[in-house]
C-alpha cells in the first residue's frame, strides 16, 4: 500500500492553490481530506505527479449565514456538517446525511467539498445537495463561477470542475421549518449506500405542500425523484398517499447491478426507502 512518488504543495490561500495547479499542468490532484484520493493512490489506481493539499487554507472551512442561504466551505468536514448548529436549523438534511458517512475517523478527515467533487454514485452527500438545489462555487484561473447542482454532477465520478479549478464552497438555500430525513440502506454499518433517499418536505396543515427528493446510487449521478415530488405536492399527509407517491421513485433511474443487488432490486429499494424517508421527514 505504497503510492508512487509525487511532489507536494500545501498553499495557504486559494490564489496560491490556483497558481500551484496552473504550474503543475495536467498531472496534478487536489487533496482535501484524502479519504478517497489516498486509498486510490495507494492502490496505484491514480499516480499524480503533484498533489496540492488544501488543508492549510483556513478560508475554505466553516459554515456562514448568508441571508437566505448558508455558505459551506469546501473543506468543512463531514463531522462539522453533521454537528453545525446553522445546518441543523436550516438544512438538517445535510447534517443527517453527513452523520451516516463511514465512521468517526473518516468523518473527521473527509470533507463536504471532497465528497461532492469525488462524486461517487454511492456517496451520501451528492443526493442531499442536489435535492436542496444548492449552488457550487468554483475558483479557477479566470476567476469564480457558479454552477447549479443540477448541472454539477455530470457522470460516474465526473463533475463540472474543470482542470485547474477548485471548489471553494457550496451555497445551500435555507429550508427552515422543513422536515428532513436521509434513509440509507447498507448491509454492514460502515458501507457506502446500496441505495439511499434524501427527503425534505414542507407540511401545511394536513397536506404536504412541497417535497424535494434526491436518490443516491440509482444512476451514475445522484438523481431527483421528480415524479415523486410532483405526486407529493398537495397530497394529504397520510402513509397511504406517501406510499402511492413513492411508487414513482424508480422512474427514470438507471441503477447499476453489483454484489449488493441488481438493478431490479435497487429500483424496488428506491420505492420502499422513499416511502420511509418521506414518512420520517413528515414526522408521521
Amino acid at each position, binding site marked *: *500500500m505504497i503510492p508512487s512518488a509525487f511532489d507536494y504543495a500545501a498553499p495557504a490561500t486559494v490564489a496560491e492553490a490556483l497558481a500551484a495547479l496552473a504550474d503543475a499542468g495536467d498531472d496534478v490532484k487536489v487533496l482535501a481530506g484524502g479519504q478517497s484520493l489516498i486509498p486510490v493512490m495507494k492502490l496505484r489506481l491514480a499516480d499524480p505527479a503533484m498533489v496540492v493539499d488544501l488543508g492549510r487554507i483556513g478560508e475554505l472551512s466553516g459554515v456562514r449565514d448568508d441571508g437566505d442561504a448558508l455558505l459551506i466551505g469546501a473543506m468543512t468536514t463531514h463531522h462539522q456538517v453533521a454537528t453545525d448548529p446553522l445546518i441543523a436549523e436550516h438544512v438538517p438534511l445535510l447534517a443527517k446525511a453527513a452523520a451516516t458517512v463511514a465512521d468517526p475517523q473518516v468523518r473527521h478527515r473527509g470533507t463536504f467539498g471532497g465528497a461532492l467533487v469525488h462524486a461517487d454514485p454511492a456517496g451520501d452527500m451528492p443526493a442531499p445537495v442536489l435535492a436542496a438545489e444548492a449552488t457550487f462555487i468554483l475558483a479557477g484561473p479566470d476567476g469564480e463561477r457558479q454552477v447549479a447542482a443540477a448541472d454539477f454532477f455530470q457522470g460516474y465520478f465526473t463533475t463540472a470542475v474543470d482542470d485547474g479549478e477548485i471548489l471553494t464552497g457550496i451555497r445551500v438555500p435555507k429550508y427552515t421549518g422543513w422536515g428532513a430525513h436521509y434513509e440509507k*440502506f447498507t*448491509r*454492514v*454499518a460502515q*458501507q457506502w449506500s446500496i441505495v439511499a433517499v434524501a427527503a425534505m418536505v414542507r407540511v401545511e396543515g394536513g397536506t404536504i405542500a412541497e417535497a424535494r427528493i434526491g436518490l443516491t446510487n440509482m444512476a451514475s449521478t445522484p438523481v431527483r425523484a421528480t415524479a415523486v415530488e410532483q405526486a407529493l405536492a398537495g397530497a394529504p399527509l397520510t402513509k397511504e398517499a406517501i406510499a402511492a407517491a413513492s411508487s414513482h421513485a424508480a422512474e427514470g433511474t438507471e441503477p447499476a447491478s453489483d*454484489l449488493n*443487488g441488481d438493478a431490479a432490486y435497487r429500483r424496488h429499494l428506491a420505492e420502499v426507502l422513499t416511502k420511509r424517508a418521506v414518512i420520517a421527514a413528515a414526522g408521521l
Partner: protein
Amino acid sequence: MTVTEVGKARLRKEDAHLITGRTRYTDNLTLPGTLHLALVRSPFAHAKITSIDTSEAKSSPGVVAVLTGADVADKQGSLPNVWPITAEQKAPAHPAIAVDTVAFAGEVVACIVARTAAAARDAVELVDVSYEELPVVLDLEEAVKDEVLAHPDLGTNISATWVYDSGTAGSGKPIAEALEGAEVLIERTYYQQRLIPAFMEPRSVLVDPTGEQLTVWSATQIPHILRLLLALTLGIPESKVRVIAPDVGGGFGGKLQVTPEEAITVLAARHTGKPCKYTETRSESLMAAHHGRAQVQKVKLAATKDGIVTGLDIHLLADMGAYLGLVASGVPILGAFMYNSIYKFPAYRFECTNLFTNKAWTDAYRGAGRPEATFAIERTMDELAVELNMDPLELRKKNWITHEEFPFATVAGLEYDSGNYEAATAKAEELFGYDELRAEQARRREANDPVQLGIGISTYTEMCGLAPSRVLGALRYVAGGWDHAQVRVLPTGNIEVVTGTSAHGQGHETAWSQLVADKLGVAFENIEVLHGDTHISQRGMDTYGSRSLVVGGMAVLAAADKVIAKAKVMAAHMMEASEEDIEFAEGKFSVKGTEQSTSFGDVAFATFAGHDLPEGFEPNLDSEATVDPDNFSFPHGTHFAAIEVDTETGEVSIRKYVCVDDVGVVVNPLIVEGQVHGGLAQGIAQALYEEAVHDETGTLVTGSFVDYLVPSAPDLPHFTTARTETPATTNQLGAKGVGEAGTIASTPAIVNGVLDAVRHLGVKDINMPCSPSRVWAALEEAKTAGGVQ
C-alpha cells in the same frame, strides 16, 4: 490444591502492551540493513508464463535483486501438504514462485528485493510478464466433470476421494438399508461459500541469514511446524533454522500454513545474504492467503414418521483451490466425524471428493470442517421438522444422546466421553423465552406484518483437542498431536512456563499462569509464560483446532506435577522427614501430622544453592512433559436466534441471540466469553455477510474490505451467553476447548431463523450469505410461484 486462580475472570496479561501500541508484530521488527520484498502476482487465474523480462526492474533505483521461478527452480522445492488422506491422493507441485504456469490469480511470478519497501513496490510495475491464457475451472460441480482441468498435467481435478461407512467400519449399519426403507427422506444440497480468514494482522515475514542459524520471524500460528517444513522444503538442515512467532494478530487457521511468501523471503535472504522482510498488503492477503469452507454438501437424511432419524448420507465436493495446502485435504475429514453431531442413529455414510480449481488455495478456517458438518445436519433437522410438522426443538430432543448414555460410541466411530444436552438446552430455552417468541411469531404471521419473526435453533458438539496421535496416524496425517511444556523453577521460586502452543490472540500467557498458580501455589504475577520461539520452546505442535488448553495446558499441568514430585524429595530432606509424609498444598510442603512446613520458594532456593542435597538428587526442579491425549474432547451447546426479516427490503436482523455452551471446566471466564463472542461474530458473518466472489475469469471481485463484508460491532446484536459445566473425563482438568464453538453453532442458528421467518411465504432455501437482495429475490420468487400464503 485449592482452586483460587482457575475460574477467575482475570484481565489478560498480554493486553497492556497490545492495546498501548507497544507491539512486536513481525512488521514492527527491522534489523540493520534489512531489504524489502514486493511480489509480482499473476492477474490471470490460469495461464502459461511465456516470458518474463526483469531487466527494467533490475535497473530501477534501489533494487538489489529480482527473482523469478526460473532463478530459484532448483532451490525452492514444493510447498508441503502433510495429510495424504488416501494412498492415491494427487497434488500438483507447488513452487513458491511459479515457474512456467500459474493456476490462480494472485500466484507469485517474481520477487523484487530492494533497499526500501517503496523502491520494491515501484519495481513491481516494471516487470514485464507475458502470459498465454488457459481455460479456467472455477465451479465445483463443473470441476468434478473433469472437462476443464485446473492442472492439465495432473490429468484430473480430483485430488482424492475419501469414504467413511458405518457399515464397513463396524460403528453402525450400512446406509443403503436406512435409505431404502425410509419412511421419510429429506434430500438437500447446501453451498458452503468460500470465506477469507481476514485476520487483522496481515502476514509478514522477516528472515535473518547472517548468523549460523537462519532466523525467521513470521506471523504464524505454527512456529514449530514451520521450522521443520521450511527446512525440509528448502533443503536446509532443521538445526539451522530458528522460527520466532512474535506478537501475532489473529489467525483463525489462516496462519496455519507454510506459505510461498515465507519460502520466498528465506530464498531472497539466502540469495542476498542480507535480512529480508515481506509484509503483504490487505489486497494481497484477500487474494492469495488461503481461503476456507468452499464445499457443496449433498445430504440425505432418513427418518421414521415419528421423527426418529435412521440414517444419514453425505456427499461432499470440497474445493482445494489451485494447490493442496498444508492440511487442506484433511479439513473435510475433520467434518466427517461430526455430521452425526449430538444425535444417535444407526447408519451413516460420508464421502468427499477433494477437487482442484483455478481459485486461491483453501485450508483450515476457524472450525475447519466442523462448522460445515454442523450446518448441514442442523439445517436438515429443521427441514425434517417442517416435513413432519413437528417443533424443531422437540425433534432434536427425540434424537439426541441423553446424559445417562455417556460415554457414547457414535455412528461415526468416536467415543463421546461426556455431555448433557438436556441441561444446556433447558437453560437456553429459559434465557431465550422460546414459548413467548413462538407466540409472537404466530401473531406476526397472522397480521401479515411486513417484519416477520423467525426462530433459529442450532445444537452442536465438536471434537476439540487435536489430536490423539494414534488417531492422526490412522487418518494418514504425517505427524502426531501431542504437546509439550516445561516448568522452570527460578532461584526465588518464581516460575517460567514454556509451552509448545503458540498463542496469537488466545490469552495463553494469562490462562497458563492461572493453571500453574493453582498447581504450585505461586502468585499469578510471578509466573512468566514463554512461547513462540523454537530456541526457547524446542518442542511443540502449536495452536489450532481448540487444542491449546486440552493438550498444551495438560502438558503444563503434567510438568508442574513433576516439579512437585521433585520438590517433595528436597522438602523431605530439608525437614528431615520421610518423603511419604510430605504433603503439598497452597505453595507449602508440610510434614503430615506436624506443624512443620517449608515454602515452595525456600525449597527452590535450597535446590538452587545446592549446599545440602539428598543423596543422588540433581539440583534442579525444572521439569518437562509431553502429553498425547487419549481422546478428543467434546464441547457442546444450544444456540437460539430470534431473527427479524423485513419482507419489504429483505434485510435480516438479529433481535436476540442466546447461547449456552458447555466447554467443561473454565480456566478464565473472561477469555472464554471473548472466544465465544468472536466465534459468534465469525459464524454470523458466514450466515449473513461474507463471501469470496470471483468473476467468470477467476478474478477475485471481493478484493478489498469494501466488497468483502466483515461485520463490526454495530452489526452484531447483544449476545446472551451462559454455560453449563459438564467436565471432560479425558484430561485432569476437565476442560474441553472453546476456540471454535461460537463459529460452529451460530451459522446454522441464523440461517434456520431466516428460513423460519419466511418459509410460510413459500421460501424453501436461501444460499449464504443471506444478503438482503437474496432474501428479497427469494420472496419475490416465492410470490410468483404462488407461495403458500
